């Protein structure tokens, strides 16, 4: 409710502002992470918790072990009763003159100092003369007899032993510097590292090197991290994550005595109370860790915020008020989407140009060299992101306003081309479409090839994939189009087949059809509507006709009954006048004929309209023909007709209504009885052929059959055009209708005067 009160413009601006804010936030987060010394280590290291567990700690420890043993080595040489012994002998040289001179520490240092050497703040040798002795003296260099600071050095080759006093003095000064460094860092200054190295000499005296003073080994261990190793054990007692590897070899190498009674104890006070490299490194570590976590949190927050505000922008863009249907487009949204695409590409290209020329110069003015490359990258990403965001929002507005497709150049072009195509004949149109399809494919492939070969110079990564993606989408679109058209024509064809097979009321479900197919199926559906209506109309009118005929025949029958009865009564009056007798006979005949006519008329109309209830069961055609023969044999004899039957020995079963089949045969036999030539034969045959049972009756007509076979089954058509014989003229029509109602075939053949009817039924297996 409340949100509705805030004007949409303010909401939009807020969302955009927030989006930019989150963009900055996430880039800041990324920056923090990338410039953290731990970048690239993943996130596991955050769980190490403690500086003492890090590699950098163990590297520091390793370095310190080196220093400690350096101290162990030099202490006995340079120190006497805890003070530096200037009289300690350092080296001995023999000059060319044969003089041998031993240099003490003091002499060597004085010699070096005279030449300009000194120790700097880090206890490293610095300074020195412009011209070195080893450059001027040439072959007149003295020969080194021995060095106390490097006793194991051997001189085997002829020139190995020759060196200058300057060089030796510098070496001594170096040794002194190293000694001072250790002493200063670990002994004179308070240190977080405590060490205690102990050897036992050949006389059994313990030689102790330590900065731990009087603290016991146990006290030292409790300071935090420690390492203890003795000459008697192969194991290193420690609570470190990484053991400094040099400690083992250095410990045994520095044992100048023939026993194993030595040990080393290293301990680090993990509270780091004293300012030294450990304390500094620990502070650094903690800071970078905080920074890393902070960066990650910023990045996450920024990313989530970006997504949320992006969704907000997508929802809000284009809307000008609470009404969700009205979409306002900016003037640049009116451009076709292709133009937008090109503008977008151009903007990206310009940005790329700027990044290659102006921006680096500006960056160099304000940002330190370490960050310049990174800043360039970031600016590039931000620029590209903003360009794409701008384009995406424009596309989204067009989508919301439903003008994305209709406003595109492709759509406009198609709408200019398609009507022109519609005027063309189909084959030409199809060919044009296909050529258009090929051209589009070729164009996209060409675009891909061009961009791919030019990908170095364009500088936009993966730009060449865009035509490839469009190509794939295009293929899918064409496939869907073809698929749909095929499916539609399949459906329409199926519908037509169904309609032609007799399902007049079949309707094609045209839901989701394309426009032309929709039109065709609509037309077909209305066609089927008409067909269905016409058929049901026909059925209805046939039924009405049958009902009418039935009712009329009922009305005729009642007066006919009286006529027949009174004609009969008249005949009983024994009228002697032969003339009146003759009249009565005519009346009798015609009234009887009227009777059969009304009865046949009802039956014919019902049979042809299908208004009959059938009682279909399994019957034997042979039995039926025998029964019919029995009924007619004697009647045929009246007209001297000979019935010749050819029947198979086995039963032939068909599915039919027995009484209706008898009606069919009765009509055919009656027909033969009435129209066959007297003294001729009537042939009746039953046979089974190709799983069909055929009943055939043949006779020779008494009068010439100058009539078409089809016409004989038309109602009221009789072989004799003059209609002198009795009969309604409906017999064959009824027989044919009844046969067809039961699913049989009824064929009439006329060959000269030979009249033949064949009735066929499928044999039941």
């Amino acid at each position: 409710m409340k949100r509705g009160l805030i004007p949409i413009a303010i909401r939009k601006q807020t969302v955009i502002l927030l989006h930019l804010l989150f963009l900055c936030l996430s880039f800041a987060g990324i920056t923090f992470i990338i410039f953290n010394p731990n970048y690239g280590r993943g996130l596991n290291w955050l769980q190490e918790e403690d500086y003492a567990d890090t590699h950098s700690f163990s590297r520091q420890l390793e370095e310190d072990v080196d220093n400690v043993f350096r101290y162990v080595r030099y202490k006995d040489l340079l120190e006497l009763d805890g003070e530096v012994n200037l009289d300690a002998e350092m080296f001995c040289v023999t000059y060319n003159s044969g003089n041998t001179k031993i240099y003490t520490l003091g002499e060597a240092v004085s010699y070096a100092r005279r030449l300009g050497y000194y120790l700097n703040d880090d206890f490293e040798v610095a300074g020195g003369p412009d011209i070195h002795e080893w450059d001027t003296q040439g072959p007149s260099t003295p020969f080194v007899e021995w060095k106390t600071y490097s006793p194991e050095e051997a001189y085997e080759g002829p020139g190995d032993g020759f060196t200058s006093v300057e060089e030796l003095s510098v070496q001594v000064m170096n040794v002194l510097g190293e000694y001072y460094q250790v002493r200063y860092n670990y002994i004179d200054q308070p240190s977080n590292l405590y060490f205690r190295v102990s050897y036992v000499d050949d006389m059994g005296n313990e030689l102790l090197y330590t900065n731990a003073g009087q603290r016991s080994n146990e006290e030292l261990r409790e300071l935090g991290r420690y390492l203890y190793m003795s000459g008697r054990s192969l194991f290193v007692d420690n609570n470190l994550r990484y053991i400094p590897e040099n400690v083992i070899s250095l410990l045994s190498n520095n044992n100048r005595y023939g026993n194993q009674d030595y040990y080393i104890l290293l301990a680090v006070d993990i509270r780091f109370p004293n300012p030294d490299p450990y304390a500094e490194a620990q502070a650094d570590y903690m800071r970078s860790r905080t920074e890393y976590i902070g960066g990650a949190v910023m990045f996450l927050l920024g990313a989530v915020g970006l997504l949320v505000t992006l969704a907000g922008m997508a929802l809000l863009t284009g809307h000008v008020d609470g009404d969700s249907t009205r979409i306002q487009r900016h003037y640049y949204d009116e451009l076709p989407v292709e133009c937008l695409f090109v503008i977008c590409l151009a903007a990206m290209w310009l940005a790329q140009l700027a990044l290659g020329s102006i921006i680096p110069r500006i960056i160099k003015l304000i940002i330190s060299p370490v960050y310049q490359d990174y800043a360039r990258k970031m600016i590039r990403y931000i620029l590209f992101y903003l360009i794409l965001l701008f384009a995406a929002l424009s596309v989204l507005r067009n989508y919301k306003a439903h003008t994305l497709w209709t406003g595109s150049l492709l759509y406009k072009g198609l709408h200019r081309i398609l009507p022109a195509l519609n005027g063309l004949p189909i084959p030409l149109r199809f060919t044009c479409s296909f050529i258009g399809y090929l051209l589009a494919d070729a164009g996209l492939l060409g675009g891909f090839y061009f961009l791919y070969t030019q990908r170095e110079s364009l500088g936009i990564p993966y730009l060449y994939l865009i035509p490839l993606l469009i190509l794939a989408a295009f293929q899918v679109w064409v496939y869907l189009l073809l698929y749909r058209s095929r499916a539609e024509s399949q459906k329409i064809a199926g519908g037509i087949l169904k309609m032609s097979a007799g399902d007049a009321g079949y309707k094609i479900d045209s839901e989701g059809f394309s426009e032309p197919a929709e039109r065709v199926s609509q037309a077909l559906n209305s066609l089927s509507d008409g067909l269905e209506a016409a058929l049901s109309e026909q059925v209805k009118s046939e039924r009405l006709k049958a009902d009418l005929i039935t009712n009329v025949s009922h009305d005729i029958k009642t007066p006919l009954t009286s006529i027949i009865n009174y004609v009969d009564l008249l005949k009983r009056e024994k009228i002697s006048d032969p003339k009146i007798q003759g009249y009565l006979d005519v009346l009798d005949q015609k009234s009887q004929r009227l009777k059969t006519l009304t009865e046949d008329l009802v039956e014919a109309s019902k049979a042809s309209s299908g208004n009959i209830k059938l009682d279909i069961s399994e019957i034997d055609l042979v039995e039926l023909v025998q029964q019919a023969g029995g009924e007619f044999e004697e009647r045929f004899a009246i007209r001297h007709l000979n019935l010749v039957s050819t029947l198979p020995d086995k039963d032939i079963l068909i599915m039919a209504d027995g009484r209706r089949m008898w009606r069919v045969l009765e009509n055919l036999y009656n027909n033969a009885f009435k129209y066959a030539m007297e003294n001729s034969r009537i042939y009746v045959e039953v046979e089974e052929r190709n799983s069909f049972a055929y009943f055939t009756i043949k006779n020779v007509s008494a009068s010439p059959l100058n009539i078409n076979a089809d016409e004989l089954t038309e109602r009221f058509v009789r072989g004799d055009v003059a209609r002198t014989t009795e009969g309604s003229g409906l017999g064959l029509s009824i027989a044919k209708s009844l046969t067809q109602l039961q699913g049989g075939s009824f064929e009439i053949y006329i060959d000269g005067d030979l009249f033949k009817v064949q009735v066929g039924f499928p044999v039941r297996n």
Partner: protein
Amino acid sequence: MQTILVCDDDKQIVEAIDIYLTGEGFRVIKAYDGYEALELLENNQVDLMVVDVMMPGLDGIRTTLKVRETSSIPIIILSAKSEDNDKILGLNIGADDYISKPFNPLELVARVKSHLRRYTQLGNLTTQTAENVYKCGGLQINDDNKEVTVDGELIRLTPIEYNILLLLVKNAGKVFSIDEIYEQIWNEEAIGADNTVAVHIRHIREKIEINPREPRYLKVVWGVGYKIEKQ
């Protein structure tokens, strides 16, 4: 003298039937609609009724239903409707016979006589059921003296006709095919049987039936065979 009630709204038809039946020695009383018929039936001793279906007022079907509430006299329905459904309806509601218009007067007389014979003789015939006597409605065969009677009237049959009828009556309700009948009667296999059996059957029908085209006893099951209707 037996009294017959004739009821039809067509006066000429009633008149004609009156002439035929009076000629045969029956007393005829005439009604022209259903109510009249019921009234006459109450006041007269009537032995048989002939009634038309389509009448104004009470029609033939409802009249028959009313009569059947009190009486069991034979009723013959007379109708212009000749469809199967109409016949079945008429016989189901209690009529004994159904004759469709236009009818053969001789057939009507024959049927009237037949029904009357059966109705009056029914009582004393039932008591005489001997061992070798087969009955089916009005049809009776006495195998001891080889006599066949329909509604009491003696029928003359040839030996083969008699044997066929006996076979069918003994197995009333069962349908016999032409081949089965041939094998039973002639005692030989029916190979290439001609129309003999069918012709005999037709002869039997002509002898025992009033209208062989619409048999009451010996029915043709077309395409299957022949049977005697179980009654």
